[in-house]
């Protein structure tokens, strides 16, 4: 008999392992009868997972932590046995802001320190001339997009709460908002940066991997109590996802994976745009300039799928840095406990060793190397922040 499961997802390329696991029959082979439910907001995904309408979900890694700690919302402990992706976001800006940044830049345009310092000069010039502050869109208060934008700006001494405006925008509205000048830039996942570039209204300034070499993006999330009651189902889910991630990472399978993801009831955009993302070969400017990176989005290769509690600690540290919560050792431990490498290993099975994750969390372009056991030291290294007293 097969186990019926309802799994929610947002139409983004980093739902790839989940969608391929179901549509290639890897979940069925594990005895799971999965119904994928496409959702329109992270709030919906979170709430439906919390109240049990979903058994599992494609979820922003920081939301899994926030939900477990009861930040901003009801406290429902979440377990993440599988990373759906590392990296995968990009920062895009309007052609006008791009030109302004390039006029001010001193250094390599792909060097985030050079662009952050250029942004600081643009911000200062705008303030002097009395222009409105620049506005940047991101997807959710508890999102990697929010933290990546903030980390980048703050490194150039731009205070994300004082010097610019950060607004939450649902991904499908990002491109329109850039077109009508509502925002000057945004940080979002695939395919939305590519769509802005293809429409000629945006330029990809940075891959998120320029800012953090290795940052967990989305996780497969289940409720902790459900996971404890259904260990076999969790192991079966992990096994199916490992197969799916391995399938996607084989270059000869990419075209098929992109076709599966492109289906209208899945992500519903051109397979070509999706494949560019999986291949890490992105058109970054309307003139057709291509930039490639082997770190754009990792779906399972280089140990990317194995949850790393150090990643959870980094995300928790960002919540403290930006005033979303105050530090406590108990909360730090609870945040780390969301990420469960042991459940991943159990799914991987005996006799198989997972690849060591390289490099370790998070490899930021600024500040000292992150030590998950020294959150205070991490925070002390950065001048700008909204820490609770």
């Amino acid at each position, binding site marked *: 008999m097969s186990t019926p499961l309802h799994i929610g997802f947002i139409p983004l390329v980093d739902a790839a392992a989940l969608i391929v696991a179901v549509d290639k029959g890897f979940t069925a082979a594990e005895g799971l009868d999965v119904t994928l439910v496409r959702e329109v*907001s992270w*709030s*919906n995904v979170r*709430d439906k997972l919390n109240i049990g309408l979903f058994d599992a979900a494609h979820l922003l890694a920081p939301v899994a932590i926030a939900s477990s700690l009861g930040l901003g*919302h009801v406290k429902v402990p979440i377990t993440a046995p599988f990373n759906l992706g590392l990296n995968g976001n990009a920062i895009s800006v309007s052609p006008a802001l791009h030109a302004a940044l390039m006029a001010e830049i001193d250094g390599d345009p792909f060097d985030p320190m050079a662009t952050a310092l250029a942004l600081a000069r643009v911000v200062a010039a705008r303030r002097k001339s009395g222009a409105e502050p620049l506005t940047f869109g991101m997807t959710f208060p508890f999102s990697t997009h929010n933290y990546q934008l903030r980390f980048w700006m703050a490194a150039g001494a731009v205070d994300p*709460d004082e010097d610019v405006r950060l*607004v*939450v925008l649902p991904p499908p*509205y990002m491109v329109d*908002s850039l077109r009508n000048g509502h925002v000057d830039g945004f940080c979002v996942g695939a395919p939305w940066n590519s769509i802005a570039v293809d429409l000629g209204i945006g330029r990809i300034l940075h891959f998120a991997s320029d800012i953090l070499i290795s940052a967990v993006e989305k996780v497969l999330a289940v409720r902790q109590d459900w996971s404890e009651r259904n260990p076999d189902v969790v192991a079966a889910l992990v096994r199916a996802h490992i197969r799916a991630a391995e399938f996607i990472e084989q270059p000869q399978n990419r075209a098929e994976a992109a076709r599966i993801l492109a289906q209208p009831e899945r992500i519903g955009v051109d397979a070509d745009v999706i494949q560019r993302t999986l291949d890490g070969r992105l058109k970054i400017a309307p003139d057709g300039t291509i930039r490639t990176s082997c770190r754009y989005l990792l779906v399972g290769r280089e140990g990317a799928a194995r949850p790393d509690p150090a990643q959870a600690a980094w995300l928790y540290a960002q919540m403290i840095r930006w005033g979303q919560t105050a530090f406590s050792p108990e909360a730090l431990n609870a945040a780390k406990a969301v990420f469960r490498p042991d459940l991943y290993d159990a799914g991987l099975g005996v006799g198989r060793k997972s690849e060591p994750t390289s490099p370790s969390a998070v490899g930021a372009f600024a500040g000292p190397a992150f030590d998950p056991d020294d959150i205070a030291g991490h925070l002390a290294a950065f001048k700008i922040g909204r820490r609770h007293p």
Partner: protein
Amino acid sequence: MGADQSPKIVIVDESPIRAAILEEGLREAGFTAVEHIREMQSLLARIYALDPDVILIDLENPSRDVLEQMFQVSRAVRRPIAMFVDQSDAASIQASVDAGVSAYIVDGLKKERIKPILDLCISRFNAFSKLQDELDRAKSALEDRKVIDRAKGILMKVKGLTEEEAYVLLRSTAMREKKKIGEIAQSILTASELLK
């Protein structure tokens, strides 16, 4: 807000019909301070300007995520709570999710004042989706009838049947193939297009 004053309710909904149905219901129930936001741009600024006690938003609206910004501690506004925070009333949460609506309630508003608003909201949302279903069904029934009429015409012409004989042929074929009459009729139209 005074104890006897009607709480200020904001409806965030891109569907003008559903919002009107809900607004009417709320007014009939004595909630006179109701505003409707249809335009999703600068949603948060509009909400801050209206300063509501209750925000109602449909679950199919991606802008629910925009509302999450209201929970950020750095903002100097009255802090709303999501309906789902109060898990004591699981039945009411389930009912509202089924109906497709979510509520945000500003801290301090008493629970017994919220309940009638929510209940009304749920029943109006359900009424709206029932209406929508009926409309869709009526539309597809009309479509079916048009297709069946055209298929009958083709059969009458090609096979020299009367209208009744043509219909009996369609119906018996549908029963034999375990399909709807509309589907058989559609395949006749498709085939006749191909053979033209």
